[in-house]
């Protein structure tokens, strides 16, 4: 173009050559996957502080403050106890239905809240994204960490419920730890994936509650998992056993409750649970990274 030469009469070089000579890079370029992972690791303190800050911020305007972290799962458990334990007196052929129900509910709520706040983790932090430069994956990962802290509180409540309903304390309880860690990795990957989707499609925020409710019914939270084998065609019931949430719920039930019915044997559950965590974790991370330069645009 001739006019660019006119507006820069003294520059002998083209802008591109000038940029190359001084090692300038195109604005908003995405780093390689390895560099991105390294960057993310160096921002671990930011991720931890951000997760913590979000947790604190969510309670600042409430009068009871962080007490709600325990009160929320406790209230939930109380409601379900009144409805299913007292009013309907549901047993569903399960020895300890209340503990069974609460385990499913709390484990499911972990994923549900991660997905819901993960969907908005980019859109609700646009100011931060536009002002400061940090690996954007920090945000959905921080969301997962915040919800993990909520999970710890609800697990404490759950252990209380399990003890009160007369379950024995066994070494199997320790298995709940790796099970929940696998679920956390799975959730992290899921949060990364829905964060990118949610940044692109604003409608996702409206759709997510329905997706999660459907997922809840498919995960045997409110009723015995035996219902799947009894009421569904065998092929579909088989397929249901691959549902990652059902797997994580079953793993925790298997760890905490003595006589809980399982849809599939524990070994299969562990293998599938680890597989899902790996798949979602790596898949979600790579998928999110591929959109890195787009966050905050528009």
């Amino acid at each position, binding site marked *: *173009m*001739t*006019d*660019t030469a*006119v*507006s*820069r*009469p*003294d*520059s*002998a*070089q*083209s*802008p*591109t050559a*000038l*940029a190359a000579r*001084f*090692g*300038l*890079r*195109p*604005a*908003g*370029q995405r780093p390689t996957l390895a560099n991105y992972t390294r960057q993310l690791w*160096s*921002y671990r*303190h*930011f991720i931890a*502080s*951000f997760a913590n*800050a*979000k947790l*604190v*911020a*969510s309670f*600042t*305007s409430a009068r009871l403050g962080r007490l709600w972290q325990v009160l929320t799962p406790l209230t939930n458990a109380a409601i379900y106890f009144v409805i299913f334990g007292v009013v309907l007196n549901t047993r569903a052929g399960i020895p300890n239905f209340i503990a069974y129900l609460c385990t499913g509910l709390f484990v499911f709520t972990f994923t549900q809240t991660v997905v819901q706040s993960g969907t908005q983790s980019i859109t609700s932090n646009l*100011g*931060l994204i*536009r*002002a*400061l*430069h*940090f690996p954007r994956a920090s945000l959905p990962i921080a969301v997962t960490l915040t919800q993990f802290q909520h999970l710890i509180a609800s697990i404490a409540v759950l252990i209380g419920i399990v003890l009160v309903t007369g379950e024995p304390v066994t070494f199997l309880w320790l298995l709940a730890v790796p099970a929940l860690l696998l679920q956390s990795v799975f959730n992290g990957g899921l949060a990364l994936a829905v964060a990118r989707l949610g940044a692109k499609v604003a409608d996702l925020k409206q759709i997510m509650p329905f997706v999660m409710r459907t997922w809840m019914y498919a995960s045997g939270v409110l009723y015995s998992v035996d219902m799947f084998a009894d009421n569904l065609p065998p092929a579909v019931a088989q397929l249901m056993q691959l549902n990652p949430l059902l797997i994580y719920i079953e793993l925790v039930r298997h760890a905490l409750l003595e006589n809980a019915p399982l849809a599939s044997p524990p070994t299969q559950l562990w293998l599938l649970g680890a597989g899902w965590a790996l798949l979602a974790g790596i898949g979600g991370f790579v998928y999110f990274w591929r959109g890195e*330069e787009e966050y*905050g*645009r*528009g």
Partner: protein
Amino acid sequence: MAKQTEPIADVNATTSAVDHQRIPTIVVDDVHVIYRVHGASAPGSASMVTSLRRIVSGTRSPNIREVHAVKGVSFTAYRGEAIGLIGSNGSGKSTLLLTIAGLLPVDRGAVYTAGQPSLLGVNAALLNDLSGERNVALGCLAMGMSRAEVRKLTPEIIDFSGINESGEFGSLPMRTYSSGMAARLRFAIAAAKKHDVLLIDEALATGDARFRRRSEERLHELREGAGTVFLVSHSIGTITDTCERTIWLEAGLIRMDGPTQAVVTAYEEYMTK
């Protein structure tokens, strides 16, 4: 188009000459930015019935309008320069800053930068439910500082922002701050780090006179630390105090690029016409 991109006055020869001592930090090469605005519709066309009809008939939303905000801008910025960006409302100043920050894709042309430009805008909201101090810590960590650095710098940043001058605001949630105080805190956080390129979009406008003087000193320090500062402002006073070079944008094109005094004089003439 060829005629339009030429600056009216060729005063930039003195500033943009490729001097071997001067190291470029930003090269903007014939950049075009086009916004695609969704939902820019005529009244009535956003109703539920029309949305439904569009989905059923499979036609794409007719409401996407294109706005050609930057129409071929080229310039080079060097280390230690403070560049003012002026122009009437909607002339593409903020769009250009967003593009340099890598937050808007270019449609044609390219932007090359040294390091990662940081954009400091009026909307750079931190977490409003948290105290000023926690926001400082978070902001610093987000800029990649270590925990030790953050501990060391937090009192300095709070002092610089001056939010404690009107009471112990550092420990109060940011939602209780006035807009000026919040803007001062945000600037103080961003200015705590050495930036290769700092882009400031009207962020200094809300501070009072004392804070403005302090922030101008801080900008001088930043430039001496081999950074480049871009300043968008409608306050000509701020531009002349801070920048020695000024770019005047009008309708997405560079109308003039050169020493601040010359550009500002021409700009003021144009605006009073």
